[in-house]
């Protein structure tokens, strides 16, 4: 999977978007993230792993706890978004050129 595809896949899930939102104001442990979320801690850990694989968060050990934070290189996600954006935009552009040509060729 491309980086962009991983990012999209990671953010496809509502719970994962919620998890990511929770990290906006700073690093948190799994327990803190899971607190009052309607999903189990193992499920939250699983979501965090997907976000980590997509390059959206990273983690470190602090004693027995694992602390997650938004990846400071999140610019990679921005670039991935632009990469995907221009891909879809240019594909749509080429399709429009094709449509335009067919319209021209149609006898009036």
């Amino acid at each position, binding site marked *: 999977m491309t980086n962009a595809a991983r990012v999209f896949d990671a*953010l496809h899930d509502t719970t994962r978007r919620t998890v990511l939102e929770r990290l*906006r104001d700073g690093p948190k442990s799994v327990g803190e993230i899971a607190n009052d979320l309607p999903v189990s801690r193992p499920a939250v850990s699983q979501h965090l792993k997907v976000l980590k694989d997509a390059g959206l968060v990273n983690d470190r050990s602090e004693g027995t706890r694992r602390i997650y934070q938004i990846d400071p290189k999140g610019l990679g996600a921005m670039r991935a978004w*632009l990469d*995907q954006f221009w891909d879809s*935009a240019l594909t749509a*552009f080429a399709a*429009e*050129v094709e449509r335009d040509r067919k319209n021209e060729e149609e006898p009036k």
Partner: protein
Amino acid sequence: MTAQIRPAPVRKSIVVNAAPERAFHIFTSGIGRWWPKTHKIGKADLDRPVIEPHGGGRWYELDVDGSECEIGKVAAWEPPSRLLLIWQLTPEFTFDPGLVTEVEVTFTADGAGTRVDLEHRYIERMGEKADAMRESVSGPGGWPALLQLYADETKSEKGDVA
């Protein structure tokens, strides 16, 4: 000290089935016919983006309620071979006149068609903005807007085709 992130420019190439003149025309004057409707910055629904047809012109979004949102500028208008746009949207997808990233589009005859090369460069300048935002812990991050865009994108991938 924050390590500088230098992402590579985004580069795309596509061959379209038209002469450069027509390809340039559809890319610019016809942008409202192909620009994905989901990619917008205003609150209202997107009518169309507008690229003013001259160097120094505006590049903005026109919404269905008549409001306009700046995207950037036209730095070079050289039909039918080259267009240089300035993209001034931050990672939060808000317009920042102090942010200058470039989108260069060239149109090269290729057989009966045209090869369109697009390069979006100086993305690291968005990083400088992003770094500044991250350094302020209580400040608003770029994430909600970006997440919304991802979410919109995901929705449009799933359907809306009808």
